[in-house]
């Protein structure tokens, strides 16, 4: 026996048994029940490779996937007063905050990044549903204002990924005041003639939908995302009737004229590059990572090829539980 078997081996085993248990290696799709290998799921941006169900993706993972080479710098958001109302329900607000920070590893419910997509410099903001339901309080408002100001300063478009259960109730009226505050932010962009693209992700509800999420130049939603002002349960209680299938889902909103497009997450980056470049009056993106020229359809190519798609389709079928 040498030191490796005595010391290193047990340590490696303990690391493995802690991190690489089947629960962590495999994730079950909550839509179709397929067990998905975590690596494969991450590569596919948390979209089920079997049924296409879009699972939650963290803002950090989303921005990493969005920006060229996964490189972005984080914009510092002005800190609001902690617990401005001294709010207490069954728990103190600062305790709820600490718990959310611990479970997400993030400071608050919005992340703002500066970087390039297809070589076009942009500002991107992503809201974090796993942080207290993505709820909109002073910090989220400050983040959107800072993102808009930075976009105006650098003359860049703003792409915002919304996700929220609604208001940060622990900030009471100040949460409500983020509706006008973020609307001012959107106006800054509009006056500077800068594109403001909103990607509505599951779920986007309440005051968030009724402010910055519905004021974009272009509204794109991820498939099946719930997008509403009042939630389906509240409506069913009010009107006392069953709501139709797919009510308030992305495709339903598209049919009712509230969205421009519904786009799968795996095709989103290419679409954002295409739209942004056209709005900025730039030439088409040169796609360096594309297959050799022979495989590219002859010009004019109306659609953006999506190389990720081919990979997703080539993925081997996954084991069912």
């Amino acid at each position, binding site marked *: 026996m040498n030191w490796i078997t005595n010391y290193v081996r047990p340590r490696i085993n303990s690391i493995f048994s802690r991190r690489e248990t089947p629960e962590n290696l495999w994730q079950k799709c909550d839509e179709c029940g397929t067990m998905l290998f975590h690596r494969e799921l991450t590569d596919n941006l948390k979209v089920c490779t079997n049924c296409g169900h879009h699972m939650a993706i963290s803002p950090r993972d989303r921005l990493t996937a969005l920006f060229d080479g996964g490189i972005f710098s984080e914009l510092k958001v002005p800190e*609001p*007063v902690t*617990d*401005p*109302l*001294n*709010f*207490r*329900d*069954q728990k103190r607000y600062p305790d709820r905050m600490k718990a959310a920070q611990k479970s997400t590893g993030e400071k608050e419910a919005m992340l703002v990044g500066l970087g390039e997509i297809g070589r076009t410099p942009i500002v991107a903001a992503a809201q974090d549903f796993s942080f207290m339901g993505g709820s909109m309080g*002073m910090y989220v*408002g400050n983040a959107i*204002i800072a993102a808009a100001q930075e976009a105006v300063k650098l003359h860049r478009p703003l792409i915002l990924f919304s996700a929220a259960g609604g*208001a940060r*109730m*622990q*900030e*009471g*009226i*100040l*949460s*409500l*005041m983020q*509706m*006008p*505050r973020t*609307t*001012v932010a*959107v*106006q800054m962009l509009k006056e500077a003639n800068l594109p403001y693209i909103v990607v509505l992700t599951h779920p986007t509800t*309440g*005051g968030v*939908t*009724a*402010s*910055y*999420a*519905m*004021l974009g130049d272009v509204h794109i939603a991820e498939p099946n995302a719930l*997008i*509403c*002002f*009042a939630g389906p349960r*509240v*409506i069913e209680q*009010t*009107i006392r*009737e069953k*709501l139709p299938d797919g*009510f*308030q889902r992305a495709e339903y909103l598209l049919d*009712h*004229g*509230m969205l421009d497009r519904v786009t799968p997450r795996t095709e989103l980056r290419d679409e954002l590059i295409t739209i942004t470049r056209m709005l900025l009056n730039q030439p088409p993106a040169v796609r360096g990572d594309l297959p050799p020229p022979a495989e590219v359809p002859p010009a004019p190519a109306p659609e953006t090829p999506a190389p990720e798609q081919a990979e997703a389709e080539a993925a081997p079928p996954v084991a069912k539980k």
Partner: protein
Amino acid sequence: MTQYLDFEKPLAEIEGKAEELRALGRANAEMDVESEAKALDAKAVQLLNDLYKDLTPWRKCQVARHPERPHCQDYIAALFTEFTPLAGDRNFADDHAVMGGLARFEDQPVMVIGHEKGNDTKSRIDRNFGMARPEGYRKAIRLMEMAGKFGLPVITLVDTPGAYPGKGAEERGQSEAIARSTEKCLQIGVPLVSVIVGEGGSGGAVAFATANRVAMLEHSVYSVITPEGCASILWKDSEKMREAAEAMRMTADELKALGVIDRIIPEPRGGAHRDKAATIAAVGKSISAMLKELAKKDGGTLVNDRRQKFLNMGAKGLAA
């Protein structure tokens, strides 16, 4: 006949007794009831003072929802002349939960817009209890835009439990309508003053109250969600509305301390419904004062001030 709120029950008893006594006196000319009735009156006044001196947030919420509280149409009838209602969103319908139109305030032409809850069963249903649908916000947007074009100050009167949570309202873009209304409030280069006269319910209120100056009646409330809604979400028990009302900071005093509103309009003893005329007059005085504060500012300054006010809002919290 006054409708009493739950917490006014002891008052109802005293006032009821005084009334009975007087009825007795009218029936029997030889009985002298007046001195005893007057004593009861005095007792009632004392009790009313005590009850309203320190209303809890939940009680204020009940007062703000009192069915006899003066509503938008009462203010318009008493404070404005030549009111000419303008209807419709030019797209789908005319929403009766929102009334608005051209009018004169102290002889100056203005645009007045407000939520109207109705005052009996029939009108309440017609007004949808003051819960606007997208058409209501789109009508308001149209009127605000017109006011901006013709240089007319805009006065909004806020009194809504919130935007209507209905199927059609969602399908026709309730969120977008509210967002655009708030946006329009921030764009118009004319004075925009708002008075929260009853319930300032969530996004439905913000869509009208994103103003240069916001006043609030003493017992009105303004909040992100109803106390019942907040209680059922955070306490998982809608009966905890008293705690929720307290925690959310929805009263005029607290909102003034937070810088969310600019002035508080005192209400008569026992709340606005006990002396409608006095309440309406006080609101009129406040609107007049707010318009005077803004009268000399040009359009660009009004827009900038309004935006800056909201950008700065909440920076200090309650400790301010």
